[in-house]
């Protein structure tokens, strides 16, 4: 008996539930295509802003035993340039292309989203959660009222599905998630990185030039599981959830799915294991689902709520 790996996500059809998470390898059409060829079910671009951003000075990354700390600083060429990359990616990709956008104000998000859709994006993801850039991402994403306004504005400017990427760096992620849904979000994405810092004991200085960064990888996986579980408990199947955070192997992915995720974002694992992570993790999920006696990967979404 074969297992169906396809996943439906607010009008998007994914051949499998593994999505290239935003911020990793998504800076050019060529890299997005490479992730697609490696087996991703969908790909997300690095967050694009209105103006070009050079990001922070090096060091922008530091590895810990349990994850990666980064503050790239939303480096990106700006939407004017990136539209070309989106067009090329759309021409070459056979899987959904999700454009991540970041801004400060609702109109800015709406404009960026509209231009991304026009250039070929199949969906837009709103970065409401980058933890290390002033005035963007988390700085707007912690305020439920502003989140609702942003999503509303974007919904008014595009026809494609709108994904709201949430931060764990808030007191109540459910409140923000609900605000996004009230604004019309078609999918919730949880979580972005966790705001963190590393200090070098010899020089007695924070390692990252920006001092603060976002922690990804195994360290934050249980936080992601908790967030997805809480969100699913609150919204059920009404709005699908993409679970992201420290997925290093199939068990981590299945955990997020059992917590309520219909699809799963992959990021740090691509650094640790390379692009083969997509195929390795998918194979593991398929085996699990088969052994558990299900026909579809989607069948296990939220199962942990039944048994708790």
């Amino acid at each position: 008996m074969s297992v169906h790996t396809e996943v439906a996500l607010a009008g998007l059809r994914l051949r499998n539930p593994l999505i290239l998470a935003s911020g990793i390898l998504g800076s050019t059409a060529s890299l997005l295509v490479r992730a697609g060829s490696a087996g991703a079910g969908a790909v997300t671009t690095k967050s694009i802003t209105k103006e070009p951003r050079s990001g922070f000075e090096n060091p922008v990354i530091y590895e810990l035993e349990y994850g990666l700390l980064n503050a790239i600083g939303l480096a990106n060429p700006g939407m004017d340039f990136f539209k070309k990359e989106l067009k090329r990616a759309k021409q070459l990709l056979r899987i959904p292309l999700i454009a991540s956008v970041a801004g400060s104000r609702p109109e800015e998000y709406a404009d960026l989203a509209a231009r991304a859709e026009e250039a070929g994006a199949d969906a837009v993801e709103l970065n409401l959660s980058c933890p290390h850039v002033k005035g963007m991402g988390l700085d707007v994403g912690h305020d439920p009222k502003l989140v609702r306004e942003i999503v509303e504005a974007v919904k008014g400017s595009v026809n494609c599905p709108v994904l709201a990427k949430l931060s764990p760096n808030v007191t109540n992620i459910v409140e923000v998630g609900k605000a996004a849904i009230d604004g019309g979000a078609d999918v919730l994405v949880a979580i972005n990185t966790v705001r963190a810092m590393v200090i070098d004991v010899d020089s007695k200085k924070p390692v990252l030039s920006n001092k603060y960064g976002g922690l990804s990888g195994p360290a934050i996986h249980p936080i992601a599981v908790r967030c997805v579980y809480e969100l699913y408990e609150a919204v059920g199947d009404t709005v699908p959830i993409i679970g992201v955070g420290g997925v290093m192997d199939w068990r981590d992915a299945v955990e997020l799915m059992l917590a309520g995720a219909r699809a799963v974002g992959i990021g740090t694992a691509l650094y640790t294991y390379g692009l083969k992570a997509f195929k390795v993790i998918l194979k593991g999920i398929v085996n699990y689902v088969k052994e558990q006696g299900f026909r579809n990967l989607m069948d296990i979404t939220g199962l942990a709520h039944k048994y708790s």
Partner: protein
Amino acid sequence: MRFCVSSQVVRLAYIKGRVHGLNKPIERVLWCQIKLDEPLKPEPGQFVMLWIPGQGEIPLSISDYSVDEGILELVIAKVGKVTTYIHERLKEGDLVALRGPYGRGFSVVRESTCLIVAGGCGLAPFPFLVRKLLEARSSVDVILGFKTASEVFHVAKFVHLARRTFVATDDGSYGLKGTVVDVIKDVVDIKGYDIVYVCGKEKMMKAVVDLCREHNVRCEASLERYMKCGIGICGACVLDPLGLRVCRDGPVFSSTILALIEDFGQSWRDHCGRKIPIPES
């Protein structure tokens, strides 16, 4: 922890070391020895990210490495904020931190006849490669090109190891007159080599790679791009159309791969990721 297993392969946490020796062979180049607290296992052509606390972090080619002494050698050209600080302020005994080695280096071929072609500071990775090639019983000829006599450095490092060393300057003020490409065309017989290694300005490398392809000689080139993370995540150093990352899939690429890279010799990306033409000089 699962993460630890992989970090044995790609190590990111900083390795500490102290500046062991410093010397300026020419005004804009600093040669720096660092005695490391922990052993490295570098391959020729790989690079490290050197962190100067409070100043910044830069990618640098591994110029040489002595396993016995744990001493790493770097060639640091004065080009920007961090390298200027290093040139002006770094002194013997200073604590530095680095991560790596990263990337894919040169193929160390056994019992072969090799040609190394370097332009200016592009000679940085080659002292290490020459030693490794000699250990592998290969013979090495070296062509070093500089703008003018006052820019010539490190020649002695190659002369006593290589079978033949050719030095050329654009204005003929030292050694042969002309570019490294002129030397390849006029002085050596390129068909006599099993492999050519090249590092320097990208237009020059493109010319060398093209020459090698014309004569059916295997060739490897070490590319330079603006790098941020150094580990293949951020996408700053991507080559189109294959999506190869200079930091992780390179910096050394074979001429077979380079033939498929439309950016090679043409364009790179600025700090924001916008593609711009590679400047002529």
